């Protein structure tokens, strides 16, 4: 991976970009610079906007990701965005940078997992799964952490709000997308993510039954493509 080969005429080529997109190697350099400068993931769209006209960030990103394989930092995808992150096996060198995070309560962690695996997910559904009321503080805390946000309202009576996980959530847990949640496939195969209707007459818990199509839609949107 010696880079001595990188053409020194690169800057001149950049000037020619008024007429043609810069060479791929040059696009790669540019993306490298942009992503290095940002702590937040940068969306493909923004990369496109910031690169010279005619550049193809998607292609250059493939090259760049490969270049950093096995390095101390690596290129990761977060939703539609890209970011450099240090390799996880080097975390022990970073005590200085470690951010002390508030310890999440068991309720908050479970609520987060339920939202991630069932999204979009209403409060009633969370409560049905946990068998206990979700306190306002729990949801607030997760929203404050920017790990969940409000999704679309469910088209059922009362039009309840739904919760979905955010890009920040994906970034924090090193996930490319919600489809990469650990064990998701197995859970789905076991039918444990189904919104199984309660048998009628089940005591004292008239939970809102989400409309099937809506639920199905949301799920497939998020996980299946």
């Amino acid at each position, binding site marked *: 991976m010696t880079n001595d080969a990188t053409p020194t005429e690169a800057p001149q080529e950049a000037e020619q970009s008024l007429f043609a997109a810069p060479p791929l190697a040059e696009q790669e350099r540019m993306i490298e610079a942009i992503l290095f*400068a940002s702590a937040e993931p940068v969306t493909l769209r923004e990369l496109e906007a910031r690169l010279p006209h005619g550049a193809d960030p998607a292609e250059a990103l493939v090259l760049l990701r490969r270049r950093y394989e096995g390095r101390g930092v690596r290129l990761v995808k977060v939703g539609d965005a890209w970011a450099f992150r240090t390799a996880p096996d080097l975390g022990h060198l970073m005590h200085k*940078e470690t951010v002390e995070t508030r310890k999440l309560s068991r309720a908050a962690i*479970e609520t987060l997992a339920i939202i*991630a695996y069932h999204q979009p997910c209403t409060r009633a559904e969370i409560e049905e799964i946990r068998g206990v009321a979700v306190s306002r503080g729990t949801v607030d805390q997760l929203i404050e952490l920017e790990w969940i946000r409000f999704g679309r309202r469910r088209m059922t009576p009362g039009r309840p709000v739904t919760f979905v996980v955010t890009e920040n959530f994906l970034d924090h*847990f090193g996930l490319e997308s919600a489809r990469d949640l650990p064990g998701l496939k197995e859970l789905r195969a076991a039918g444990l993510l189904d919104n199984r209707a309660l048998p009628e007459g089940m005591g004292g818990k008239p939970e809102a039954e989400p409309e099937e199509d809506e639920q199905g839609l949301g799920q497939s949107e998020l996980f299946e493509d």
Partner: protein
Amino acid sequence: MSDSDWSDSETNDDSVAARLAAEALIVDVDGFEGPLDLLLTLSRTQKVDLRKVSVLQLAEQYLVFVNKAKVLRIELAADYLVMAAWLAYLKSRLLLPPDPQDDGPSAEDLAAHLAFQLERLQAMREAAAQLMARDQKGRDFFARGLTEDVQRIRVVRYTATLLDLMQGYARIRTRDDFRPFVMDRDHVFTMEQALDRMRGLIGYAGDWTDLVSYLPEGWEVDPTRRRSATAAHFAAILELAKRGQIEVRQGETFAPIQIRKKPE
């Protein structure tokens, strides 16, 4: 949770040891996140796969727990009691032969659903644990520390259409047509003025007198001025009449309006 035998409803409450054990568990109720969580914990004592758990046995275990809480006079939250009532109902349904006239869900369906709920809660617990065990940002991997601000350069592009231009020009060229409307105060007699005048004059109006005779000098001839003064004085006498200071009369429509001081 202690390993006391909860399925044994014959526990001797008189035994101090048993009482203590029971208390330990009951006190633990704070540690449970609702009845479903308690059921999940109880189901572990069956030491079987959740799919094979005996719901009947579980219901019994739960009811024992609730009864012990009652004996110890520990107040359980309402949802624990609701669950207890429901499990008692389920238990009776499971034990009795099915009622052929009941077309609702069978006791087995209800039991299966409860088992599903427990399995799902368990699965979510495990998923949550797996999630939290992942490498996390700020703990295991890190973002760029020395970021560079992206300078935002705002480029303002001004636009105007041909229509704007033409309207702008038209506005200038027709501006002279507009003369601001100025109220001609010389020919207006206000009600306030009339009221002031009339207040001073009614003292002399012992007999019925035509309103016209009260109009001020110089206001009776010019039609514009007369109209304004008449209107103002008419409004003024109505006000005075309202206050009970004068009386007003008019023989018929368009007949002269007459006023006099209200007799005391």
